[in-house]
């Protein structure tokens, strides 16, 4: 690790000021990703601003929305009664990630801004366009089982590894941001960029912009929702493919509304807008789910070691929605 200064902020204004005073400052949540990357000298901040003292409140409002402070721990969010009751897909997505220990440390803000687990990003003997722009990419011909099939570019196929964010994308969560230029709100699905030829620029955040809270708009039908994750071992592994979904089926069996997002397949939490649009008004049948899945994956491109994910993603989508529709999958 390279040396750094450390300061703790109890509020957003102080955090932004502290970060603004050092050119390469980083906010520090639970440190479960940042400390690891600093140890590998992939991240070399000159200052750490500890933001675990920011709001840890979870506010379930009368209108059905929930406001979540950025410093809320992953365990606390997954265990919260209102989240379990009204947004079970979010509890399930968080609980499907990492381990009990890591979920106790990890914050909501840090989870959203965690970096890819692409092996070549972590290995500084390898070429990686994300780590060193223009260096090339060893994942293309290398071990790319975990890499993206949607939204990738020639320059980079690294995935965004978060489970929680897949549920947040399905729920159309809003992020509250604060920075030197004031506060603003953006949708979580707008936060992460696709790599194109600049994979080192991962989000639309401005320098030292802070996530202060995450807001879940009310979505009554999300009470019927779930998260399904397929991985190489039963627990404590990143997703090969995952799906977060909520389904609202009318009495006559047609789909009134649906939310669907995918994990493990793209450089960002992948909201399946195409599949959702096809499904609204369609019958809630496995055949319709499969057709929508085919459409969502139509532009998927496999690499040497991850083409299996294209069919896997279709099956995961179909199985997840079939389960929510009351069928067995």
């Amino acid at each position, binding site marked *: 690790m390279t040396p750094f200064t450390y300061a703790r902020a109890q509020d957003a204004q102080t955090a932004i000021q502290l970060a603004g005073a050092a050119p390469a400052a980083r906010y520090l949540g639970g440190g479960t990703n940042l400390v690891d990357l600093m140890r590998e000298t992939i991240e070399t901040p000159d200052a750490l601003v500890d933001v675990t003292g920011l709001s840890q409140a979870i506010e379930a409002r009368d209108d059905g929305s929930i406001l979540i402070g950025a410093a809320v721990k992953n365990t606390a969010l997954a265990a919260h009664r209102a989240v379990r009751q009204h947004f079970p897909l979010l*509890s399930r997505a968080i609980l499907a990630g990492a381990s009990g220990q890591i979920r106790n440390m990890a914050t909501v803000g840090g989870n959203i801004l965690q970096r890819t687990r692409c092996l070549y990003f972590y290995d500084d003997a390898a070429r990686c366009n994300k780590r060193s722009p223009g260096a090339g990419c060893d994942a293309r011909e290398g071990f790319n089982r975990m890499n993206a099939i949607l939204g990738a570019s020639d320059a980079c196929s690294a995935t965004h590894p978060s489970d929680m964010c897949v549920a947040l994308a399905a729920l159309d969560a809003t992020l509250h941001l604060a920075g030197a230029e004031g506060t603003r709100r953006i949708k979580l699905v707008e936060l992460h960029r696709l790599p194109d030829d600049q994979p080192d620029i991962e989000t639309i955040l401005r320098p030292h912009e802070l996530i202060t809270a995450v807001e879940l708009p009310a979505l009554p039908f999300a009470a019927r929702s779930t998260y399904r994750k397929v991985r190489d071992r039963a*627990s404590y592994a990143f997703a090969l493919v995952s799906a977060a979904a909520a389904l609202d089926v009318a009495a006559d069996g047609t789909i009134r509304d649906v939310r669907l997002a995918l994990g493990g397949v793209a450089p960002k939490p992948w909201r399946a807008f195409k599949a959702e649009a096809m499904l609204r008004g369609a019958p809630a049948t496995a055949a319709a789910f499969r057709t929508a899945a085919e459409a969502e994956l139509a532009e998927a491109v496999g690499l040497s070691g991850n083409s299996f994910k294209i069919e896997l993603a279709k099956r995961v989508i179909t199985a997840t929605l079939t389960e929510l529709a009351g069928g067995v999958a």
Partner: protein
Amino acid sequence: MRFIVNGQHVEAVFDLRTSLLDLLRDHLGLSGSKKGCNQGACGACTVLVDGERINACLALAVQYQDRAINTVEGLSEPGALHPLQSAFLEHDGFQCGYCTPGQLCSAIAMAAELSRGVPSAVTVDLAAETIALSHDELRERMSGNLCRCGAYNGIVEAITETFSPQKSAQEAA
């Protein structure tokens, strides 16, 4: 900087880059917590902070000033064993023992999470007020602690006997 380790107030001077694990082992002489992977992947370094389990290898020590940290050394009085430690002995919950301090701390906090009603990835009913320590629940909740020797059967038996004695008796019958 001040810390509360196993109930004792301690002062330590260290480089800011020091992890909580290195602080405990190298500065405070508490070598019970182990360094397996040093990257969050094995659980050998699991300690308790205010009763919650964390991976000390991923924690910068500076972040845990003034917090109550408990390690395997603090689970029982010197010369005595925590009931879970006795159960590990009885059920052969280890071979080399390298993962054991982490397993012990993790299991104790895991049982506390369960009694608070924290769900897991295998909890069928998220609305449930109480969750029983089934075989599946136990294995899922302990998945952050690997054992290279594969002593899992003994580990599961020891934890079951300690935290779900009824179930353990049923299985024995």
